[in-house]
């Protein structure tokens, strides 16, 4: 049985799809078979972020309409043979799709995977509930900004009414230079206010923007790559290692780096 984890946030634009993709890649690098499932109907972008938009033959709707089997709709990642994507569609009235239908698709293929990572739409409307109903665990993505933390808090409250095995938070786009300078919330403050377990922290990294433009996961040279690997190990092995975004900005050299970053 695969572990089914929904990646959610409430607020849009905090990096749900980026987290979904890179967590999937990091887990597959650990020799685990991973499926990334896009249930963000209407505004899906997982295929683009993964760089597989030109390889989509069948999608979730085709599976639901019986045009193909779930297995046939899976797209194997070019660089990670253990990573698969089941894409969603842009042109669909998402109201008509139920969590039971998504669960039916999952039931057909879950035995093939160690992890199924579900990319949830933004908001707390029907799409959110549909995605959460398909999962056993949830990761709530937030950024260190008040609006995102506020929405994460609301989502965490809503998740309380589901019988999930685990709900954790992930803080994305943390700028170490600002945290060191006392200009941005650190992960511990956010954890304290949200009163939730922290699965990891991802630094604000140009490597992510580059990867989004090219398609696929962040480069191995990027600091975010290391952060996602830590998160994957925390998730799979139960480790509790959190990426230190401030490390680079401590000490004399760190102080110079901090000043340069501010100037740029």
């Amino acid at each position, binding site marked *: 049985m695969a572990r089914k984890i929904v990646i959610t946030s409430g607020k849009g634009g905090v990096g749900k799809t980026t987290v979904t993709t890179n967590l999937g890649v990091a887990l597959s690098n650990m020799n685990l078979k991973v499926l990334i499932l896009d249930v963000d109907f209407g505004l899906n972008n997982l295929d683009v972020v993964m760089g597989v938009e030109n390889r989509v033959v069948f999608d979730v709707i085709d599976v639901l309409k019986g045009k193909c089997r779930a297995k046939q709709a899976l797209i194997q990642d070019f660089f990670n043979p253990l990573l698969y994507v089941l894409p969603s569609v842009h042109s669909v009235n998402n109201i008509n799709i139920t969590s039971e239908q998504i669960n039916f698709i999952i039931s057909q293929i879950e035995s093939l995977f160690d992890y199924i990572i579900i990319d949830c739409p933004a908001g707390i409307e029907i799409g959110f509930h549909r995605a959460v109903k398909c999962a056993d665990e949830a990761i709530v993505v937030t950024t260190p900004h*008040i609006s995102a*933390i506020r929405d994460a808090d609301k989502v965490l*409250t*809503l998740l*309380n*009414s589901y019988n999930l095995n685990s709900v954790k938070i992930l803080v994305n786009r943390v700028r170490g230079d600002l945290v060191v300078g*006392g*200009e941005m*919330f650190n992960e511990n403050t956010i954890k304290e*206010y949200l009163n939730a377990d922290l699965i990891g922290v991802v630094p604000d990294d140009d490597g992510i923007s580059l990867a989004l433009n090219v398609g696929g996961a962040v480069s191995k040279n990027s600091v975010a790559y290391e952060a996602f690997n830590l998160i994957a190990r925390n998730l799979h092995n139960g480790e509790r290692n959190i990426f230190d975004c401030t490390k680079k900005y401590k000490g004399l050299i760190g102080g110079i780096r901090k000043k340069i970053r501010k100037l740029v």
Partner: protein
Amino acid sequence: MELVKSEQRLKQILVADKEENPLRIINVLKSDLLNILKNYMEINANDLDVSITVDEYGFFVFNSYAKVRRLKNLGAIVEQ
């Protein structure tokens, strides 16, 4: 200094949100509490009253009042 102000702002917003919509939290909390209490006593949902308020310092104050019909065999529970 700016971060301290932001933290206060965040706290106020989160507290205000919870004050606005406490019913949902209370229902979830009440259901969880009932599940636990039923291990120890005979209690109905209608007999359990749960409320959350916010004090002047921004702390949540949790109040619960229950009318219990009968306690279960406490000796057996301890042995378990």
